């Protein structure tokens, strides 16, 4: 079940789950390289993530992997008050 959270002033954020943290100790010398953008591949695992959500009057935290066992349609769109 998604966990409800209290709305505060800080903007709640989510993100990918299970990504390796950056290796420590080499910060001064390494140039920050952006990860190569790789498109999702069909037939491969959907990257797990958590994200805050508004659902039926409540603010809840959603994790994709909570939906294992169900079909999921994950839809992105440019912004609220536009069409979907």
């Amino acid at each position, binding site marked *: 079940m*998604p966990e409800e959270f209290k*709305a505060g002033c800080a*903007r*709640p*954020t*989510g*993100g*990918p789950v299970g990504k390796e943290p950056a290796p420590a100790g080499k910060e001064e010398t390494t140039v920050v390289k952006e990860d190569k*953008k*790789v*498109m*999702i*591949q*069909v*037939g*491969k*695992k*959907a*990257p*797990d*993530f958590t*994200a*805050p*959500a*508004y*659902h*039926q009057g409540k*603010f*809840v935290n*959603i994790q*994709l*992997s909570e*939906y*294992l*066992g*169900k*079909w*999921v*349609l*994950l*839809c*992105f*769109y*440019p*912004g*609220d*008050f*536009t*069409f*979907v």
Partner: protein
Amino acid sequence: MSIDSVFVHKMWNDHELSKMVKGGVPFPMLSDASGKVGTTYGIYDSDAGVETRGRFIIDPDGIVQGYEVLTPPVGRNVMESFRQVQAFQLVRASKGSEATPSGWKPGKMTLKPGPGLVGKVWETWKTSMAFDE
């Protein structure tokens, strides 16, 4: 999911969408303020600072079965998404013994891939079946 906060989602649902859909949006409206999830899925436009119209079909094992990405000005065809989910559900229920050819929708014939079908598709499947009548 969009880069809007959950507060904006609430306002949009409560003041506009609930006037289109009785009871409001039935599914979670997700917030990806940092664009990190959209970046992971390859649909975040960092120049515009928004997510493009990406739509992913994820099966009960968490496997991506299909996706579609459109630039913002063109909206999706919801019925096509449903049709694809219905097709993937049929294939899954048949444990891969059936396939849904071009233009398939519920009620139309499926194909049973195998050595006997090679070179024989034309006998059962007609090009008119690719279109809605």
